[in-house]
């Protein structure tokens, strides 16, 4: 059968089209605007930089998390008294949920980056312009997984079973584990759509461990959650607090964007416009800058 424009497009992206087929593709794209758009969309995806600094460490963590979960499920199979027959789906689901909660702790912004309080502080106070994309520093406990050979090698290094642990207890205060656990639980609830539960957990974290780095980091998700629930006033408090505490922090542009949106939904258009202008001026390289400019233009064009 004759190749469709989509086939020619796919092969062109692989650089496997001959001259004749390239001409055919050109003709097909000339004659169909829709095909041209689809081809261009593919090229746009191809052109995106899909590899970022720090990816290697993230990939290591992902591999460790999967290993941990697979081990746990296998262990559960072995240890269940009545054997596999009685290993019901809910048991797997419970194990998966538990591990997911632990694993989420390893990936949420606050927990992901910091094994120590100092780590949190470093992140919170990192100038925004230093990183438009959140980058995870390599974990101290990260295990280098062997590169893929043709056959399975024996791996000498033992991966830790759970999420990264501090090097020594003295490096991390006693409350940190609980604050981190609360943060992880709240993050899990948020990811699963339980915004009310997430808010309650983040609030609990902030009231029980007000000086913890997790409590400070919780202002951003709290602001976002309140905003999503139409509670702009509460959202505004969290966004403003985050910015006041870390005016040059990595999340300052996100907090300012949230602040502008909250102001806008409170009907404080002039204040919102000032916030949008501040985003465009202070964070021109952030992904929010263009959006802020278009908001400004839209507000100016209103009668």
């Amino acid at each position, binding site marked *: 059968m004759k190749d469709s424009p989509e086939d020619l497009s796919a092969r062109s992206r692989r650089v496997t089209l001959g001259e004749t087929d390239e001409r055919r593709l050109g003709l097909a794209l000339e004659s169909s605007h829709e095909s041209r758009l689809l081809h261009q969309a593919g090229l746009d995806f191809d052109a995106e930089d899909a590899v970022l600094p720090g990816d290697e460490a993230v*990939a290591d963590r992902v591999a460790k998390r999967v290993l941990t979960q697979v081990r746990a499920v296998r262990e559960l199979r072995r240890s269940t008294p009545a054997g596999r027959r009685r290993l019901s789906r809910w048991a797997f689901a419970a194990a998966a949920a538990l591990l997911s909660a632990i694993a989420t702790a390893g990936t949420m912004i606050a927990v992901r980056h910091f094994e120590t309080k100092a780590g949190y502080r470093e992140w919170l106070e990192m100038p925004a312009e230093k990183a438009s994309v959140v980058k995870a520093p390599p974990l101290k406990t990260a295990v280098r997984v062997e590169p893929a050979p043709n056959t*399975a090698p024996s791996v000498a290094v033992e991966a830790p079973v759970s999420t990264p642990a501090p090097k020594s207890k003295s490096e991390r205060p006693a409350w940190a584990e609980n604050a981190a656990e609360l943060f992880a639980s709240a993050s899990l609830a948020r990811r699963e759509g339980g915004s009310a539960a997430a808010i309650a957990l983040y609030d609990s974290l902030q009231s029980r461990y007000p000086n913890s780095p997790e409590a400070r980091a919780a202002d951003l998700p709290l602001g976002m959650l309140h905003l999503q629930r139409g509670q702009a006033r509460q959202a505004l408090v969290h966004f403003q607090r985050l910015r006041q505490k870390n005016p040059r922090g990595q999340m300052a542009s996100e907090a300012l964007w949230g602040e502008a949106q909250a102001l806008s939904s409170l009907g404080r258009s002039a204040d919102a416009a000032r916030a949008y202008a501040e985003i465009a001026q202070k964070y021109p390289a952030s992904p929010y800058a263009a959006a802020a400019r278009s908001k400004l233009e839209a507000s100016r064009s209103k009668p």
Partner: protein
Amino acid sequence: MPHLIPGSRAADAVSGGRRDELLGLADAVKAGDESALRTFLSAIVPHQMRVVRRVLGPGRIDVEDVAYEAAYATIDGLSRFRGEGTVLHFACRVAALVAMNARRAEATKKRAATRTEDSAELASEAPSPEDVAGSTSLAPIVRELFSSLSQPLAEALALHVVLGYTVAEIAEAASVPEETVRSRLRLAKQALRKRVLSHPVLREAVGSER
């Protein structure tokens, strides 16, 4: 010269169609060999992360979580791998679908929140900044379509634009006739065109033929 996703059919075609090096490892993983599992993960996860990032879009902090879900789903699904394409194709396809589903779930939650909280303005005024960044790339628009099109259409679109699959390859992956895939891609193209025409910057950039 386009950047090809390692692990996609594109990359394999470039590498000359060598034999599937991961097949033996996959068998060992299925048999419960933990060291094989480590090696297998080290081989697939970097590719899956790139696919996930393409589907989710730049600047997303949940890439790691979604990549984790994709990797786990791949291990879990190895027993169902029928040998269509290479193991890496399979892993990348799983990653694309898991990431697409993550986007769809997020969009569904947003819509539900909009309905229940009666905050339509909030939802509509909370665009992903990349969507309105004034870029002439079609990628953000296509990502929107991943969330808004029906699952079969979105899947066909994702496999074609993200992984560079041909019609036959999509048909094989989705276990549907090629004609069905053509029909799905046609509808997806129409949706894409409609979106582009409603976007002033893109309409100008790509030319507005109506």
